[in-house]
């Protein structure tokens, strides 16, 4: 049976992990390669590396980091941050990335999704959608959730799928950082609407929140960052809990 996936997300700047990391048995908590390998050993199902600086100078550092991750980590990983063209993607693929995640660039130029899917295959293309609820409508935002767009979550998600995205990473900006749980209602609706997998993001604070995302929200995967980095929740604990709660999980 296909299992639900747990995905730690690592924010990268200048080749280092930012945000605090609170791990035992790690020599250098800022080293994304060591941290990624450690998550893989603990049972993470995939990893996401986001280049949060994404400047031209940083890009080369990031590509060499991707190569190191590919060399040392034996589970799939997605890379994102600052990808705006097909030309940006080729070096990441060549370095060994399994998937790329695009966000603002897809909103600016939706054709990019078609071009990436045609060039590299749908399985390689994750479209991240940040949205928040304004006057009863889920509005897509870009630039880390700061800039509203004219796109609505559900129609945009459908368009993204139809253009060839292989997966959608949905973050509720209203829930992100609150640790009050994922945005279940829009998640359920997305999963009923789409035939590609949906990753839930934003709001994880407890094990129960993951259970809700999978059982009520019908998410295929759930992503969290600081919760794992600070050791508030460990992946083995979370997966054992989900397994006992009847969720199909890889132990």
């Amino acid at each position, binding site marked *: *049976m*296909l*299992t*639900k*996936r747990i995905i730690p997300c690592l924010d990268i700047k200048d080749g280092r992990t930012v945000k605090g990391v609170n791990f035992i048995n790690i020599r250098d908590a800022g080293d994304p390669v060591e941290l990624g390998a450690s998550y*893989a050993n603990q049972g993470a*199902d995939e990893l996401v590396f986001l280049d949060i600086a994404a400047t031209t100078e940083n890009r080369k550092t990031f590509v060499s980091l991707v190569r190191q991750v*590919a*060399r*040392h980590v*034996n*589970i*799939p990983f997605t890379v994102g941050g600052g990808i705006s063209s097909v030309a940006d993607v080729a070096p990441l*693929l*060549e*370095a*060994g990335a*399994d998937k790329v995640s695009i966000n603002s660039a897809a909103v600016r130029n939706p054709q990019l999704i078609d071009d990436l899917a045609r060039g*590299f*295959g*749908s*399985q*390689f293309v994750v479209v991240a959608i940040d949205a928040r609820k304004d006057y009863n409508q889920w509005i897509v935002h870009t630039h880390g959730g700061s800039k509203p767009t004219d796109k609505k979550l559900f129609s945009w998600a459908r368009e993204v799928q139809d253009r060839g995205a*292989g*997966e959608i990473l949905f973050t509720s900006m209203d829930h992100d950082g609150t640790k009050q749980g994922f945005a279940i209602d829009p998640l359920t609706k997305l*999963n009923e609407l*789409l*035939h*590609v*997998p949906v990753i839930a993001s934003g709001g994880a604070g407890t094990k129960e929140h993951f259970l809700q995302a999978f059982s009520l929200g*019908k998410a*295929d*995967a759930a992503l969290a960052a600081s919760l794992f980095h600070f050791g508030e929740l460990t992946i083995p604990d979370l997966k054992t809990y989900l397994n006992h709660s009847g969720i199909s999980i*890889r132990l």
Partner: protein
Amino acid sequence: MNLAIIKYNAGNIRSVAFALERLGLSYTITDHPEEIIKADKVIFPGVGEANATMRYLKDKKLDQVIKGLRQPVLGICLGMQLLCAYSEENDTPCLGIFNEQVKKFQPHNHEKVPHMGWNSITFTESWMDSSVADKFVYFVHSYYVPVNAHTSAITEYIQPFSAALQKNNFFAVQFHPEKSADVGEKILHSFLKVT
């Protein structure tokens, strides 16, 4: 051991190479027929689209090379599908080592396409290490090979399909052993041990 990875326009050759490095193995990535033919073992990886890939293999005359190989060959993902007779993906005649038709998954209830993520493998008759039976491996695919006489492991998604195949010196897996953590490494080892 002289290990060749067939170089062609497929996505994940680098990932396979890195997985072999983690196992302490050296390899050659090559599209030269002589180098492929003289290798002790050959890996035929792949992520991509069947039709364009078959055209590329034909242009490079690699289709005939692969069909004629006598040493153990491991097809991975698209590599496994291309070893079959035909793929529904853009109506593509393939290499025909396995006389099977590759079919497209139809989305069903809450089961989505692509089949993406970790799923378990059940053995029928297998060249793989028995310790990986019923363990989870990583899949990403929209097309599948139905269960047939050469199926060596089965996975259930929408319906049972072939997770692994074997016929004579040809071995194949639909999942990605190079991305399937320690279980995947054991499966690569199993292939490296076959004679």
